[in-house]
């Protein structure tokens, strides 16, 4: 943690394909991440980098920790940083994309809504939805902040968010929401559920990023350690720490 005079905390996704690909990215740079105790352990280390403590967290938690300064460096999706807090991106520095975990956060509607192509159509539908159906238009998503920001940009205020932890794409058919905001990489899940992305429904493009916390306590020693670590990672111009 940041109270130590030196040393860095690196947060890595704790499971699944994201963990696998992150570890691969580090081992390509000759930094093998050890996780003694396997998948049930939440602390690890990097061989030859004793100053770095590795912590394994769920990806969404990494975003929160980076924003709050609980970890110094982390790997997580850029979408999760934007979602974690309304001004999350101001509290971190995106060092570089890692070329995996690519996905788009999109607005998708039932394909049968043939009168709706763009956000402006959705604004029309939302505006008189309540008088027709006696309730607000419902949007299922786990991206509450991103949805609110995107809808506000298009002047849509007349809707409610239904928070959805998983299987968001099934919400319209299940009757728990009218449309969704969700992440998609190939679009096949959306298509299988007969959902269609609006023409201007792309909220953001996301990929796994190497991210540095701006809110962590950056002493000169720790900045130097960060520069050293980033130079081993490669693909990063020197001097990142001067931006902190």
């Amino acid at each position: 943690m940041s109270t130590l005079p030196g040393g860095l905390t690196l947060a890595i996704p704790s499971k699944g394909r994201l963990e696998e690909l992150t570890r691969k990215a580090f081992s390509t740079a000759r930094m093998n991440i050890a996780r003694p105790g396997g998948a049930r352990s939440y602390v690890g280390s990097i061989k030859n980098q004793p100053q770095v403590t590795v912590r394994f967290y769920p990806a969404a938690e990494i975003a929160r920790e980076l924003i709050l300064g609980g970890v110094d460096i982390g790997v997580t999706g850029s979408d999760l940083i934007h979602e974690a807090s309304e001004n999350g991106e101001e509290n971190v520095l995106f060092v570089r994309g890692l070329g995996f975990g690519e996905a788009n956060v999109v607005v998708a509607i039932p394909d049968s809504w043939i009168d709706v192509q763009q956000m402006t159509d959705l604004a029309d539908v939302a505006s008189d939805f309540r008088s027709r159906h006696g309730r607000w238009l419902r949007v299922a998503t786990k991206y509450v902040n991103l949805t609110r920001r995107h809808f506000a940009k298009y002047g849509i205020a007349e809707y409610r968010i239904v928070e959805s932890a998983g299987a968001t794409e099934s919400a319209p058919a299940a009757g728990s929401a009218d449309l969704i905001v969700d992440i998609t990489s190939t679009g096949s899940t959306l298509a299988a559920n007969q959902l269609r992305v609006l023409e201007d429904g792309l909220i953001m493009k996301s990929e796994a990023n190497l991210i540095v916390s701006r809110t962590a306590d950056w002493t000169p020693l720790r900045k130097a350690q960060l520069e050293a670590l980033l130079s081993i990672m490669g693909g990063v111009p020197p001097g990142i720490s001067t931006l902190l």
Partner: protein
Amino acid sequence: MKTASERYAALVRLVESRTVTRATPALLLPAGPYFDLAGEEFGRNLLLTTTNNGLEYCLRPDFTLPIAQQYLEDGLIGAPAAFTYLGPIFRQQNSTPVEFEQAGLELLGQADADNALDQVLTFARWALAIYDITAPSVRLGGVGLFEAFLEAAEIPVAWRSRIRHRFGHPEALERLMERLSNPEQKVDAPAPDSRDTVIEIVTDAMLSGGLSLIGSRTPEEIADRYLEKQALESAPIPPETVALLQNYLSVAESTDTAFERISEMCKEAGFDFDEPLYQVRNHAAALAALSPNADVIFDASFSPRLDYYTGIVFEMTGSDGEVLASGGEYDRMLERLGAGEPVKASGCALWVDRLEREAEQ
């Protein structure tokens, strides 16, 4: 020189004057009604807390809603009532919780709506005077006036509701204006499909997508809007009407000049708009009489982003441009809360911390 506590005491006296009832709604309120009334955009500013069984509550984010709800619950519809309030409200801004002191007036069910609005303006004026603000900048807007304008300019009904729903949201309205002034040129206009055919196509698509035909948008609703869109595209608003609309929305100047300009542009377009303007003119005159030093402008595109506002709206700003008082007429609010029909309502809210800062300058 008055001290801060003397000013506050004077404000308490104003709020507790004999002709009004000071309301003291609870600090902790069910969050549902706020989401129901104002939607997700206002909801993001609430400070929420959840009970163990999942019910959401919020720290009081304003006084208007609980006061109006109490009025309904007490069965007072139709009876004139005057409520005032003073106390803390809580919101979050950029994920930081903030406590504000707010005061205000709510006039519900008053027989004479024009008189009620003038009382609201007077109340705001007196409150500002306590803080030695005698020359605020005042911005007036006309929600009802805009609706009347859309009708008088003979804008097709379907477009009217599209335009009306974007009123108060400059970006969305500008995008719509752009769309109106550059209508999509359809290369080949397909023969209009029959309503029954479209309904059938939509029904098939919904069923194959596993959607309920009644739970959300119905096939009829989708088909009608689809056909309406086709019709609108083939019959765009004439360019001169779009220009008139843009011209109207660009009006933002001192009241007399503004009303003169609107009256002129309507005459040129071939219709008389003096009757609807008359009421706004009267309130502007009342305001000018109340505070001769105020800088009052009429901004035709100004409206709060809440669709229960109906008539005239206003905001008063201080030397650094911060809003000190805002309010207006919102006859649709009680209807939204379940009154069954619009009920005359007008009121204003005052930002006490900002008034105090202004006084200290």
